């Protein structure tokens, strides 16, 4: 029974402006599952307003400078969790080394959304139709989580557990997202396609693809993730496996698309039926892969 509600004003809560990562983590632990982090607030604020989220405490991490920034090391590009989406999109590091993520962020909401929303926040919220989790999943990213007990890394492939449910425990703070850095001479191409009624909406269905070709045009790595078609974004490993070791073209891609239907359990809602999502997942996957191949071949 879905409540219509009558509320767009948040219920009461205590507010902590965390000045450091330590303070944030301590507050989370003290919160005993009733404390939430607010970063960009683009998803949390409507939930608070509609009283779908009723935390006892809200911990604001926007003041922690150590949680913002993008760094490129030899093997990794690290985006701190509280980095604004707009900043990530504008970053030459992201544009150069993480092009699939850049394509995904460009599709997130509108400029107001990206000016405030954070990369980490999107991953923490894990809406199955959102763009950043999908791209990050396709890119085999890893998330760094910290609690009073210490720091751990979780692969995104292990991170999404259900709709808006992740492996992050209530007392863990997301520190950063880690992406592998590809050698600059690598022939890598990416593709991101989504469909929604209006530009800027959450995707009804989305597909993120990244492929690498060798000097002969043979596919050496392939990643395809589909969103909006299940409770979590899905990597289609069966399809990826079929693409490896061959030259990929439209026909060979089409031959692998049935793998998608096996890997997803889409739902019905007022915007689209499960059948629609299943069919369109294949359509967008094909487009994303073709875009990726074309890019890689340049």
């Amino acid at each position, binding site marked *: 029974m879905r409540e219509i509600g009558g509320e*767009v*004003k*948040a*219920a*009461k*809560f*205590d*507010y902590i*402006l965390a000045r450091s990562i330590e303070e944030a983590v301590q507050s989370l632990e003290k919160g005993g599952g009733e404390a939430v982090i*607010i970063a960009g*607030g*683009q998803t949390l*604020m*409507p939930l*608070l*307003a*509609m009283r779908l989220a009723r935390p006892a405490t*809200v911990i*604001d991490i*926007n003041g922690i400078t150590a949680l913002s920034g993008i760094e490129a090391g030899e093997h990794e590009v690290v985006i701190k969790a509280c980095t604004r989406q*707009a900043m990530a999109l504008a970053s030459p590091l992201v544009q150069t080394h993480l092009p699939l993520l850049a394509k995904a962020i460009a599709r997130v*909401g*509108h*400029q*107001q*959304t990206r*000016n*405030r929303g954070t990369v980490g926040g999107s991953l923490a919220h894990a809406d199955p139709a959102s763009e950043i989790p999908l791209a990050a999943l396709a890119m085999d990213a890893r998330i760094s989580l910290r609690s009073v007990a210490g720091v751990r890394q979780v692969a995104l492939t292990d991170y999404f557990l259900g709709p808006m449910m992740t492996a992050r425990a209530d007392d863990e703070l997301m520190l950063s997202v880690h992406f592998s850095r590809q050698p600059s001479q690598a022939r890598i191409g990416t593709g991101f396609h989504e469909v929604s009624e209006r*530009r*800027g909406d959450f995707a009804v269905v989305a597909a993120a693809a990244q492929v690498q070709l060798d000097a002969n045009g043979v596919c050496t790595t392939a990643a395809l993730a589909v969103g909006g078609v299940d409770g979590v974004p899905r990597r289609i490993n069966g399809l990826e496996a079929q693409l490896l070791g061959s030259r990929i073209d439209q026909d060979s891609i089409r031959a692998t698309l049935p793998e998608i239907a096996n890997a997803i359990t889409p739902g019905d809602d007022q915007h689209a039926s499960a059948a629609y999502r299943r069919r369109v997942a294949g359509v967008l996957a094909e487009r994303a892969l073709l875009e990726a191949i074309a890019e890689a071949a340049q």
Partner: protein
Amino acid sequence: MNKREMTLTINGKAYARAVEPRVSLLDFLRDDLGLSGTHVGCEHGVCGACSILFDSVPIRACLMLAVQADGHDITTVEGLCDEDGAPGVLQEAFQDAHGMQCGYCTPGMLISAQALLAQNDDPGLEEIKEAIGGNLCRCTGYVQIIESIQLAARRLREAGQ
């Protein structure tokens, strides 16, 4: 009531207030400070009528807690006039090209347009659309809004020559 002290700058003026943490920045601006030019449309982050400049970038005031503005710099539509209170180039252009009807989405549109023109005084059509894509209007069908922004851009370029 667990009110929290904060200080912030709005339209060039410093304010010190105590506010309950759950109050949105939008409600704070309107109800606590009487800055009624920023409007309430949906309170869940879609319509953009509440857009303001926060440290010079457009954001939705309904999606921020007032306390999060502590120490920050805000511009609302009231602050788009020049020091003498005269409408700026953008506002004059919106009048000349009739970029509104009921006026309700207008403050948010002006904020988004202002931010665009501050970065780029020669925006293409796609850039204008990107700038106002998150501001819904039910009256105009957007064409006269786009024309207003284009007119303002042209006048800014001419003035800059």
